[in-house]
């Protein structure tokens, strides 16, 4: 282990009266994953499997004049070709996708382009062949005639007067009403609290600045994939890597105009997602190909396709104006945010608006949000979608404000911090939250109290994600040896089987190892929403808690019938059923389980929940960095992440989320970028040129888990997957300023841009 003069991973616990919750058992799926046995989507095989490939647009914006697939179909080894014409025509409708919604027509258009291609990489046709090489050869035989149109690549270009229009039938929704104006701006909304004009009048100091970020990708290591089998009985079975098997099922049902009961989705193990594996891409194409061929068809994207043909997170333009009194009380703040939705409406600007000011108690605030379509891939969720873009602006502006006021940046934040009862600018009133505790923990941390290394810069920032609840289901069956089988429907992206199982174990008074959790398919469990919005440990964990309570209740009832006593006189604690009145009556859950069959049959607990008590999470960073004066390269020397987990179910995996989110934020800040050509083509579609952080680029990521229990969860869980990606971008920018005196307002902070800044 690395030796340090402080504990690099601290849990600040407020509640320790648990046997299982808060411990660190080995994850149940771990052995399969360290031995190569776990089956991911690309590993799935089936008898008679065909391999599919997808033809993609070389143009950023073009009309499709004609598609001729005849030569491709004639190639030896090709079994079927499909285009948008193979989709049934269904009426348009709004579809709930878990974390966001989309129009059915847009989803269908994104899966296979119909009249127009809207970005380089837009899918046009699918081919199924005996192997992937033949399918790829056949792609080049499809003849598509295009009429190339001018394209728009940024919100500035897309919002300009006379800009080329992506959707002739898209009119701007202006403050809730259809403006009737055809435009690339799908929506302009506002949140208003108080009166910012009045607030700015009271300000002694005002900071106003514009910030820009570019498109970045989630960068999951496993590309999108899916296998479809359309059986002769009309039933469709899909095996794929998804964050939400029910989203896949329901999306396919709408796209293919068939009942959900005819579709079964089996989620395989998933090689990363971070939000990007909520939408579907290849699954419907594989389904159409399987329908034509009657055999299973598997499609696996290449890395290039994953960059060009899946959903990254948007580039954005953010304008911040914030004012405060000389005592440091913020009097008004305005955030103007335009985000690239990609080819179809639906950027995360709405979520950004919920986050941008969330950490602060503002009397006067105004948020303007613009959802803008551009000729890039349709964006998808990426870990706290929209919030890092917003924080890159506001959290830098706050440090600038602190400097002007001569205040410590953490003190300024604490002076304005949101607490229980604070009404956010976008409306909701906070229940108990941990923003203050996170900031206090930052101020007291050994890192913040330490002397900076000579020549290095230090920055701080905090970030917020609101988290979501949504539907989850869980079944628990008691085995005759006293262990339980737990089935649930949340894809396990990073240890959630275990954090869910632990909640059942806590209720039943058994060990985490005595719970055997399985993630099962859509025919086998009740509706469960996506693994997203940091909801899984919170909501599916709650379902496990309820299902375990059901088991517990039945155990007590059964014991009562065995002993012929009133169940109200019995209790079950630590896995032992006992009488409150008769100390002779005592039985372990194992002893009871052994006699289930003889005493009335098995015990199965079940629950379907939609918990409302969602608790948002705050995360703060302290960053030290140094800048190579000759090359402009930034080295992160020390990094501390501090997050309110509510209750850390499994602290190791909470730390893992914090460390992983931090490093994605570091990559976003320093290296990552879609380099777009003038023609709208991404020039860096390999993982060499789209450079994500490697082990060598980083220090250890120290963590502090703050536990301010969420009153809306039985164990106080908040959900910790996302807030941790929010503070790195502004914290690093603030550290760069501390180091060299330049405010960098454009991401990424590549060596070139740092050199420019050093020169000026």
């Amino acid at each position: 282990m690395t030796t340090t003069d402080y504990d690099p991973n601290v849990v600040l616990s407020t509640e320790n009266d648990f046997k299982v919750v808060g411990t660190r058992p080995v994850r149940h799926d771990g052995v399969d994953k360290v031995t190569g046995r776990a089956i991911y989507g690309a590993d799935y095989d089936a008898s008679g499997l065909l391999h599919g490939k997808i033809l993609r647009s070389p143009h950023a914006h073009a009309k499709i004049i004609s598609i001729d697939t005849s030569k491709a179909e004639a190639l030896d080894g090709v079994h079927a070709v499909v285009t948008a014409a193979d989709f049934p025509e269904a009426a348009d409708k709004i579809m709930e996708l878990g974390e966001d919604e989309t129009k059915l027509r847009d989803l269908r258009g994104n899966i296979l382009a119909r009249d127009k291609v809207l970005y380089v990489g837009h899918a046009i046709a699918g081919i199924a062949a005996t192997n992937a090489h033949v399918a790829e050869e056949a792609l080049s035989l499809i003849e598509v005639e295009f009429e190339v149109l001018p394209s728009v690549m940024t919100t500035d270009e897309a919002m300009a007067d006379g800009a080329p229009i992506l959707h002739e039938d898209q009119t701007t929704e202006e403050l809730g009403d259809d403006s009737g104006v055809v435009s690339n701006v799908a929506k302009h909304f506002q949140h208003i609290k108080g009166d910012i004009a009045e607030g700015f009048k009271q300000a002694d100091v005002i900071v106003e600045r514009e910030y820009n970020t570019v498109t970045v990708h989630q960068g999951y290591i496993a590309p999108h994939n899916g296998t479809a089998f359309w059986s002769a009985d009309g039933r469709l079975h899909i095996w794929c890597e998804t964050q939400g098997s029910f989203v896949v099922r329901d999306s396919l049902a709408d796209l293919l105009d068939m009942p959900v009961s005819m579709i079964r989705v089996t989620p395989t193990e998933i090689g990363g997602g971070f939000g990007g594996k909520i939408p579907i891409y290849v699954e419907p194409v594989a389904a159409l190909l399987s329908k034509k061929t009657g055999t299973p068809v598997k499609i696996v994207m290449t890395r290039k396709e994953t960059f060009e043909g899946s959903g990254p997170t948007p580039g954005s333009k953010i304008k911040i104006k914030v004012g405060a009194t000389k005592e440091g009380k913020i009097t008004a703040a305005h955030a103007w945010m335009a985000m690239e939705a990609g080819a179809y409406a639906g950027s995360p600007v709405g979520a950004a608006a919920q986050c941008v000011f969330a950490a602060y108690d503002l009397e006067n605030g105004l948020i303007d949000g613009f959802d803008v379509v551009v000729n890039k891939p349709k964006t998808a969720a990426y870990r706290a979608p929209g919030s890092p873009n917003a924080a890159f602006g506001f959290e830098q502006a706050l440090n600038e404000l602190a400097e002007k006021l001569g205040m410590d940046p953490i003190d300024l934040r604490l002076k304005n911090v949101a607490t229980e009862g604070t009404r956010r600018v976008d409306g909701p009133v906070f229940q108990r939250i941990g923003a203050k505790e996170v900031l206090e923990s930052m101020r007291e941390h050994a890192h913040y109290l330490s002397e900076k290394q000579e020549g290095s810069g230090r920055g701080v920032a905090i970030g917020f994600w609101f988290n979501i609840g949504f539907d989850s289901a869980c079944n628990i069956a008691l085995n005759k040896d006293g262990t339980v089988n737990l089935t649930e429907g949340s894809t396990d992206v990073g240890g959630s089987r275990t954090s869910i199982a632990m909640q059942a174990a806590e209720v039943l008074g058994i060990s985490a190892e005595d719970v055997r959790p399985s993630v099962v398919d859509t025919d086998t469990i009740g509706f469960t929403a996506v693994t997203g919005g940091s909801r899984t440990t919170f909501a599916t964990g709650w379902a496990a808690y309820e299902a375990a309570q059901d088991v517990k209740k039945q155990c007590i009832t059964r014991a009562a019938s065995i002993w012929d006593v009133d169940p109200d006189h019995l209790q079950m604690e630590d896995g032992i059923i006992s009488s409150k009145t008769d100390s002779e009556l005592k039985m372990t859950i194992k002893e009871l389980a052994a006699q289930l069959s003889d005493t009335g049959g098995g015990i199965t607990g079940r629950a379907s929940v939609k918990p409302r008590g969602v608790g948002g999470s705050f995360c703060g960073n302290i960053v030290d960095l140094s800048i190579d004066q000759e090359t402009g390269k930034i080295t992160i020397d020390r990094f501390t992440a501090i997050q309110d987990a509510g209750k850390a179910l499994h602290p190791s995996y909470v730390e893992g989320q914090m460390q992983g989110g931090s490093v994605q934020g570091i990559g976003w800040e320093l290296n990552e970028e879609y380099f777009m050509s003038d023609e709208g083509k991404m020039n860096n579609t390999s993982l060499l040129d789209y450079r994500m952080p490697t082990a060598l680029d980083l220090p250890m990521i120290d963590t502090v888990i703050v536990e301010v229990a969420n009153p809306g969860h039985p164990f106080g869980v908040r959900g910790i997957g996302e807030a941790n990606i929010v503070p790195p971008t502004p914290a690093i920018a603030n550290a760069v300023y501390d180091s060299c005196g330049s405010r960098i307002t454009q991401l990424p902070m590549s060596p070139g841009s740092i050199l420019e800044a050093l020169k000026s």
Partner: protein
Amino acid sequence: MTTKTHVQTTINGEPVDFLCEPRQSLLECLRDVIGLTGTKEGCGDGNCGACTVNIDGRIVTSCLVLGVEAQGASIETIEGVADGTNLHPIQLAFLEGAALQCGICTPGFIIATKALLEKNPDPTEHEIRFWLANNLCRCTGYDKIVRAVQDAAKRMQEA
């Protein structure tokens, strides 16, 4: 159809023969021809390390090796790391140290780590980070992976 070549190799200590087309990578042969899917594909161009295998004592990204090049080679994949039902100390260290989240990069990291610790039983943090720089992990931020490698080194020295 393209003529296939007969390739004779040793995989995880066992003789393995397979037929492959000239254009098929070793990764494709391992996964699709031989059925060893523990080796993963993340990029197909040698930049993510998910397909790392050990060939004759050197770690390589198997997507950049042709199947036909494996003629006569001795190959170690993730399936050969554990000794039957006894996990290798590196596997135990990854498991107990929570050094994996989605797990797709884990086989590559374990193969790379094994080669490192066989060559350098007591690496510094920097040496670990340098050695593993060709293996991308997007979930963990590498902290727990580096600690797991340090832990594995200790377990192997104590063994």
